[in-house]
């Protein structure tokens, strides 16, 4: 029981530190702040727990604080980056909770695409050129490393939840959203390269 209390104490400390630190300006990424806080508060919590409550077993403490900290990071990552949750938030704000598909693609998804491009530029992985954007040496190195990891884990196509290799499935989904073929194209659609 002592272990559970110490684990919960470590997590409470982690919550307090992250909620404060995430609001402060700085160059360190939010995920790095989460990780540093999780490890830091784990060790501080254990030291305090041992001092206040005496002898205890380490692994139950690690299990409780580790699980809660991972869940906390998972919740943060979901609301921080998920495009699907962003769309859901826009639907909640819309009158009647309804939005046209074209409006979602053009006003919410395309800006998200641009935001990620800007993020890659800011991180030094891509740079603006006369004709558009190009990879930097750093970006190229990272992209190849990711490709190696994906190959090792048998991931062939990444980026989309649906299998890109199945055009029939795409066509079915397209029909479910656009029952009339002439409605398919929208101002937000980028024409295919010949």
């Amino acid at each position, binding site marked *: 029981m002592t272990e559970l209390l110490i684990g919960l104490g470590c997590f409470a400390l982690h919550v307090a530190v992250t909620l404060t630190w995430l609001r402060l300006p700085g160059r360190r990424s939010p995920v790095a702040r989460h990780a540093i806080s999780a490890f830091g508060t784990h060790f501080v919590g254990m030291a305090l727990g*041992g001092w206040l409550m005496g002898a205890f077993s380490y*692994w139950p403490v690690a299990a409780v604080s580790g*699980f809660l900290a991972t869940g906390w990071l998972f919740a943060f990552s979901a*609301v921080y980056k998920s495009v699907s949750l962003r769309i859901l938030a826009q639907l*909640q704000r819309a009158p009647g909770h309804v939005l046209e598909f074209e409006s979602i693609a053009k006003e919410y998804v395309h800006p998200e695409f641009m935001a*990620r491009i800007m993020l890659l530029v800011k991180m030094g992985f891509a740079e603006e050129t006369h*004709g558009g954007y190009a990879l930097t040496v750093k970006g190229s190195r990272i992209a190849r490393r990711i490709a190696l990891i*994906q190959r090792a884990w048998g991931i062939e196509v990444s980026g989309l939840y649906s299998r890109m290799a199945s055009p029939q499935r795409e066509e079915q989904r397209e029909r479910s959203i656009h029952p009339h073929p002439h409605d398919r*194209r929208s101002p937000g659609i*980028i024409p295919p390269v010949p």
Partner: protein
Amino acid sequence: MPIDFVPSRAIGWALAGCALLPCLVLALSHGPLRIAAPGKRFVSAAILSWLSWATVMAMLAPAWLELLSGALLLATATLAGFTLWTLIAWGFTLSLLQALDRGVRSLTVEEWALVYTRGRPFDVFARDRLGVLFMLGLAEPRGRNIVMTANRGWFLARLAGWFRRLFGLSQ
């Protein structure tokens, strides 16, 4: 401050279950056991790890604290593994970077989007992300419109909004 760092037998088996998870994902990624869909592959590996652990626990019958700690350790590994898996399998920003790497020269935004979606209209990406909402019952298509579902969609949107405020993120 005496802290016992030596894991008990039950905890040791839970740690073995944690180590088994990536090994199983790897085993299901290649060869005759390969499961093509990345989502199903991870879920299958997670189920097998949990079943292996549960089988050993049924034989050991440990004390409740040991059992709870073991379950939490395995849950941590599953959640952390899933987070990393989503990044390498479906990560938006990483995939964008790789799309730029596939381009032979510098790309305009439009060309970049096309390389990302492998030559399909950009709407494919929007539909893909909406597909998650449909699959989870958070929204549904009605003709040309997308409608948030009254119960599940509303609840999750509120919860996500609450978490965004809690984390100090803009709405």
